[in-house]
């Protein structure tokens, strides 16, 4: 049996300290926590930075490091620093070194890097080793050069290799959410279907329980399946909370593709073992070619945002026409006065800013916010056009035969530069002969 303690769904989200202490007292074999995902958007992979505050990350990581020392077992984090890019791994390694220096801990740290050089991927593409996933098309090699960061999602093999160094702490770059949990059970011969399935159920911490915010859960893996129990006081896992978690952020609730195969849960049986724990058996692991998913982000321009507030009833009633007229007139003026491509968009907050054209029931209230978004290839141009937009947002009349109106602005200056914007641009898989071909492990001793 292998016992995995999962403190929470992600480092930086917080967890219930009493639940964590209860979990440590249960003597886990490994502590595994996720450090990120793509769900926060492309900025983090684009810039190789973390979404969570450094101080929050350090405070929680310090507690987990102390829990690890108490348990005397490895602590593994996957997708370090939100995006798992090499720079984000270094960021968490730096925090780890600081904590070790402050606490006088002696540690062996295995650092697993998932960053992919564009040139290596271009060679792999030419060799026919990169394939698209729906809805993507064939990969243009030029796109690889445009990415500011590319990562491959490691699976259990790379995490196992990092654990095999005898490390106290594994800081991994991009991994699948499940790999950090499934690695040790699979290495020790637990049921592979059960290992992957339990890992998927556990990857969001207590999300698959009656109290999603309680954080800590414990999963026991064995030769036929797994048993999941929450560590929070009064928190329960039920066959429904556990089985329903396969729906979560999954496009397919039955099959989950991972490096080297897929998990099939169509035959899984969920049984309540007591009032708060659930036993799962019957899930299958179907081995396949060894492929890893690639993620990449590229810079797609610079943006400047302005917000004006419209409260006048006649303007609210005609807000769409007002906005359309502004975009037309401002675009024409800016085209005459600047060089370079730009785009002006006005989103009407309080009408359909959330869903746009998909919203067929949109209805404005007593006021609307108008969010002006100017996108251009340089920061200077985006600011320049945003400044041309300002007089319109401030004074544009619905007709020529009326006194000049003035609208509300919450800020001075009204233009808020967003800096560079990024977008995800890879949805492809890379075939590897050896799982370690696209990954690197460094072992670092601190406090020695």
């Amino acid at each position: 049996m292998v016992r995995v303690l999962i403190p929470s769904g992600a480092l930086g989200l917080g967890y219930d300290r009493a639940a964590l202490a209860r979990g440590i007292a249960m003597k886990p074999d490994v502590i595994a926590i996720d450090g990120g995902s793509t769900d926060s958007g492309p900025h983090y992979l684009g810039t190789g930075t973390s979404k969570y505050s450094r101080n929050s990350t350090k405070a929680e990581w310090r507690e987990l490091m102390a829990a690890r020392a108490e348990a005397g077992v490895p602590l593994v984090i996957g997708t370090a620093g939100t995006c798992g890019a090499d720079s984000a791994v270094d960021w968490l390694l730096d925090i780890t070194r600081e904590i070790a220096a402050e606490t006088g801990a002696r540690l062996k740290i295995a650092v697993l890097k998932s960053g992919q050089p564009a040139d290596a991927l271009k060679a792999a593409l030419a060799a026919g080793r990169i394939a698209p996933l729906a809805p993507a098309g064939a990969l243009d090699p030029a796109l690889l050069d445009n990415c500011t960061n590319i990562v491959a999602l490691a699976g259990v093999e790379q995490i196992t290799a990092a654990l095999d160094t005898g490390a106290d702490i594994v800081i991994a770059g991009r991994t699948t959410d499940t790999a950090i949990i499934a690695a040790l059970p699979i290495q020790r011969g637990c049921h592979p279907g059960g290992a992957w399935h339990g890992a998927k159920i556990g990857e969001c911490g207590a999300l698959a329980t009656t109290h999603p915010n309680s954080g800590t859960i414990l999963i026991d893996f064995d030769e036929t399946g797994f048993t999941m129990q929450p560590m929070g006081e009064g928190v329960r896992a039920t066959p429904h909370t556990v089985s329903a978690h396969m729906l979560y952020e999954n496009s397919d609730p039955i099959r989950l593709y991972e490096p080297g195969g897929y998990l099939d849960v169509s035959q899984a049986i969920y049984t309540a073992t007591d009032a708060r724990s659930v036993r799962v058996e019957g899930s299958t692991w179907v081995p396949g070619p060894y492929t890893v998913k690639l993620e990449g982000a590229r810079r797609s321009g610079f943006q400047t945002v302005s917000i004006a507030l419209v409260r006048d009833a006649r303007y609210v009633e005609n807000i769409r026409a007002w906005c359309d007229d502004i975009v037309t007139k401002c675009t024409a003026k800016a085209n005459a006065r600047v060089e370079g491509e730009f785009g002006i968009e006005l989103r009407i907050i309080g009408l359909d800013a959330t869903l746009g054209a998909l919203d067929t029931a949109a209805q404005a209230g007593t006021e609307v916010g108008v969010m002006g978004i100017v996108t251009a290839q340089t920061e200077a141009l985006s600011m320049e056009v945003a400044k041309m937009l300002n007089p319109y947002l401030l004074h544009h009349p619905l007709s020529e035969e009326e006194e000049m109106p003035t609208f509300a602005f919450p800020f001075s200056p009204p233009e808020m530069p967003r800096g560079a914007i990024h977008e995800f641009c890879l949805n492809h898989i890379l075939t590897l002969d050896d799982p370690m071909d696209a990954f690197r492990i460094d072992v670092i001793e601190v406090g020695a």
Partner: protein
Amino acid sequence: MSTVGDIALKVRSKNAGPFWLTVDIFCGTPDAYAQISGALQSATVAAALKVDVEELKRFDLADLNVVKFSAPRPAIQGTREDRDMHGASFAVLIASLTL
């Protein structure tokens, strides 16, 4: 006329990676599940999300009383055209469909 949201316990939409959107209709009871699973047409859901029905994946999960739909995101997460980074609001479109 009832809407999906009137009958279901909860309708949730989330990203499933940056390129896919997934909508989970938690019907709550076998009766509600039978009603929604039976009457909600995939073509109606595809039209609400403005995606091709061929691209829409549908899962009718009687054990969970859940009907699930997944579709390529109307705009890839975080692009200039995307308005909802976490895909959270698309649930409203499905909840407001009339059965």
